[in-house]
C-alpha cells in the first residue's frame, strides 16, 4: 500500500529565497513521524505545502496517493491540522469554534460524544469567548477540534506550545490512542521528551534539507547510549 504522506524532492521558493531545497519525507499508515529541525528550517513551510495552502515550486507531494494541491479539498476530509500559534475569532466562544470546525470537516455528527469527552479531558470551558482565552486554552480549542474529528492523518505543528505539564500528558495519551486506532501522525515539535515518548520515526531538516531520517530505534542504537537530546543537539549545531 502507498504511504500516507509521500514527499519527493520538494522545493519551495519565496521570491529569491529558497525555503526548501529537495525535501523527501514519507509517513506510513499507523505511525507517528516526528519532524524536527532548528527554527526557520522549513518545517512549517513543508506542512503548509502538505495542506495545499502553499504551492510547491517543484517536486511531488502526495497525501493518500493524491496530489496535495490539486485534491486539497477532498484530502482535507481525511486530515486534521493543529497549528502552533492558534488565533481565533474574538467574538465566538470556544464551543462555537469547535462546532464550526467539526461542521466544516463534514464529519457526521457522531462527533458529539467525542467532543464532550475531549473537552472534559482537556478541562476547557467552551462557553467563554475566544478573546478571553489564554494561549494554552486557544491551543486546546484547536486540539479538541482536531481530535474529535474522524480524520486518518493528523498534521500537528508544535501542537503543545503553551500547554501545562498535565495537559501535555493528556495530549500524549491521546496521540498514543490514535496510534492504536491505526491513524497516522506527523508531529513537528521542539519538545524532545514528547518526541521520545511518541515517535516511531524521526526526520530532521535543516536549512530546507533533510539531514537525518530513520526509525527511533535505529537512531538510539547509533547514538551509543547518548541521550536523544545529545543526538539532536549535535545535528542542530553542525551548521556552525
Amino acid at each position, binding site marked *: 500500500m502507498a504511504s500516507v504522506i509521500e514527499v519527493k524532492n520538494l522545493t519551495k521558493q519565496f*521570491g529569491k529565497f529558497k525555503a526548501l531545497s529537495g525535501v523527501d519525507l514519507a509517513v506510513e499508515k499507523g505511525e507517528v513521524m516526528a519532524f524536527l529541525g532548528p527554527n526557520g528550517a522549513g518545517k512549517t513551510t513543508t506542512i*503548509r505545502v502538505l*495542506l*495545499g*495552502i*502553499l*504551492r510547491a515550486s517543484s517536486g511531488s507531494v502526495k497525501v493518500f496517493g493524491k496530489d496535495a494541491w490539486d485534491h*486539497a*479539498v*477532498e*484530502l*482535507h*476530509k481525511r*486530515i*486534521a*491540522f493543529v*497549528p502552533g*500559534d*492558534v*488565533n*481565533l*475569532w474574538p*467574538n*465566538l466562544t470556544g464551543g*462555537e469554534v469547535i462546532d*464550526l*470546525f467539526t*461542521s*466544516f*470537516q*463534514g464529519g457526521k455528527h457522531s462527533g458529539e460524544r467525542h467532543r464532550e469527552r475531549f473537552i472534559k479531558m482537556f478541562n476547557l470551558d467552551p462557553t467563554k469567548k475566544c*478573546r478571553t482565552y489564554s494561549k494554552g486554552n486557544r491551543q486546546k480549542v*484547536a486540539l479538541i477540534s482536531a481530535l474529535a474529528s474522524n480524520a486518518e492523518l493528523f*498534521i500537528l505543528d508544535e501542537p503543545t506550545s503553551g500547554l501545562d505539564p498535565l495537559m501535555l500528558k493528556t495530549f500524549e495519551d491521546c496521540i498514543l490512542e490514535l496510534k492504536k486506532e491505526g491513524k497516522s501522525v506527523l508531529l513537528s515539535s521542539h519538545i524532545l521528551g514528547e518526541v521520545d515518548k511518541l515517535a516511531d520515526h524521526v526526520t530532521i531538516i535543516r536549512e530546507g534539507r533533510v539531514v537525518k531520517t530513520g526509525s527511533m530505534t535505529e537512531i538510539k542504537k547509533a547514538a551509543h547510549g547518548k541521550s536523544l537530546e545529545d543526538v539532536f543537539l549535535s545535528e542542530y549545531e553542525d551548521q556552525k
Partner: protein
Amino acid sequence: MIRYLLFILRRERLMTPIWIASLLAASIGIAIAFQQLFATPEDMRVMAETLANPAMQALIGPTYGIDSLTPAMLMAQELLIFMIITVAIFNIFLVIRHTRTDEEQGRLEMLRALPIGRLTNPAATLLFAFKANLAITLAIALGLIATNMDGMQVCGAFIYAGSIGASGFLFASIALLMAQLFSTSRGALSGSFALMGVFYIARAFGDMSGNILSYISPMGLGLRVYSFYDNIAWPILVLFVQAIIIGGIALLVCRNRDLGEGIIPASKGRRHASRFLQTPFGLAWNLSKGNFLAWTIGLFALGATYGAVIGDIAEFVQTNEMFQTLLGLGQGDLITYQVVESFISMILVVMAMVAAIPVVIIANKIRSEEKQGRIEPIFARAIRRRSLLATYTIIAAFGSAWFIFITALGLYAGGANTGLLNFSNIVHIALFYVPAILVMLGMAVFLVGFLPKLTSLVWVIFGYSFLTVYFGSLLGLPEWMDRLSPFGYHPDLEASGFVTMPFIVLSTTAIALILMGFQAYRSRDLVG
C-alpha cells in the same frame, strides 16, 4: 459554501444589522425632514438655486429637474453621494475583516486545512456582501416608499436605493481585490480608501466641467441615475457588471497565490533599528508616517480640487443674476470676491472635518497596538505610559495643524490662477479650525484613557458634526445643536484678531480632555 456563509453571518450577527438599521433610520428621518422643509414650491426653488452651482456640484454631484421639483428629488440630489460613501465604507470594512484580516491573523490557515475550497473564503465573503447590499437596497427603497413624501415614486425609490446598493457591492469587489494585492489588512484598507478618494475627486472634476470623468469614476456613475426624475437604470447595471468583473479578477488572483502572500511584495527591512527608531517617539512616528504621507497627498489633492472650482464659481456668480439677488448682494467684482470668500469658509469647515480623520486615526493607533498585544512588551521595559501616550498625542497634535494647512495650500494652489484668492486669508481661516481638530484629538485621547473599548465613539461625534454642519441650516436645526459640535464655530472674517472667544474655549476644552485622558491612561488596565 452555505456553511461558510452561515459562519460569516454568525460573526456579523451584530455589525451588519446595525449598519443596515442605521442606514434605514437615517434615510427615513431625512426624508421626513425634507418633506417638512420644502412645503412650498418656492422653498424648493430657492434650494435648487443654491445647489445649482459648480461648487455644490463638485461636492455632491449633478443637479437636475429644476422644472418639476419635489422634496424627494431634492433629497436624492443632496444625499445620494453621502449614502454611496457610507455604504462603500461599510463594504470595505466588511470584506477586509473577513478576508485579509483573517488571513493575516492565521485564522484562515486553520480553515483552509479543512475541506474547504481555496476560493470559499473570498467567494462567500463577496456573496455575503452582495446579500447585505441587497438588504440595504430593499430596506432603503421600502423605507422611503413608506414615508410617502411628495414626489415619492416606487420606481424612483428602487433606482435611488439600487444605485446605493450597486455602488456598495462594487466597493466590496474592489476591497476583495485589494485584499489580494496587499499582504496586510492595513495595506488593503488604505488601498481601498485611497481608490475611493481618487474616484470621488475624479467625479468632482467631471461633474464640475461636465466631462467623461463623471462616467469613468464609479461614484460619478452612481449619481447618473437621476432618481425621482429621469430614473435611469443602466448605470446600476453597469456598476453591477463592473463589480462582477472586479470580483472575478480578485478570485483569479486569489486562486493563484500562496496563503499569506500579497502581490505587492513586502520589502526587506534594515538589520538595525536606526537611532531614532529606538526611542518611543521614533517607533510611534514609524508606525504613523505612512498614514501621514498618504493623507498629506490626499488632502492636498482634495484641496486643489476645490481650488480649481473657484474660477467656475466666479464666472457662475457673474453670469447669474438670480444667484446675486438670492444672496442679497450688489453688483460687480465685490460680490464675486465675497462669494468666493464664503465658499472658501464653507469648504474649509468640511475640510477641517476631513483633516481631523487622520489625526484621530493616529491617536487611536496606541489603542489598536494595545489590542494587538504590542504595547505590553514596551511597557515591560523602562518606558512610562505617559510618555508613550504623549508621543502619539504630539504627533497627532502636529498633524492637527499640518493637515489643515496642507489642505489650504492645495486650495490655494488649485485656484491661484483665478487671482481671486488671498493666501494669508485662506491660511487664517484654515488655522482657525485647528482648535476644533484638537478637540477631536482630545476626545480620542480621552476615550483611549477612560473607555478603551469604546474608542470608536469618536466617529459618532464625527457623524454628528458632519450632520449639523452640513445639514444644520438646511434642516433648520436649532443653533445650540450646532454649537455642540467643535466644528460649529466659525471665524469672524471681519474681526482682525485671531484669538477669539471660541478659539480659547475650544483650545481649553481640547487641553482638558487630553489631560483627563492621560490621567486615566496611567491608571487603567491594559486590555486586549
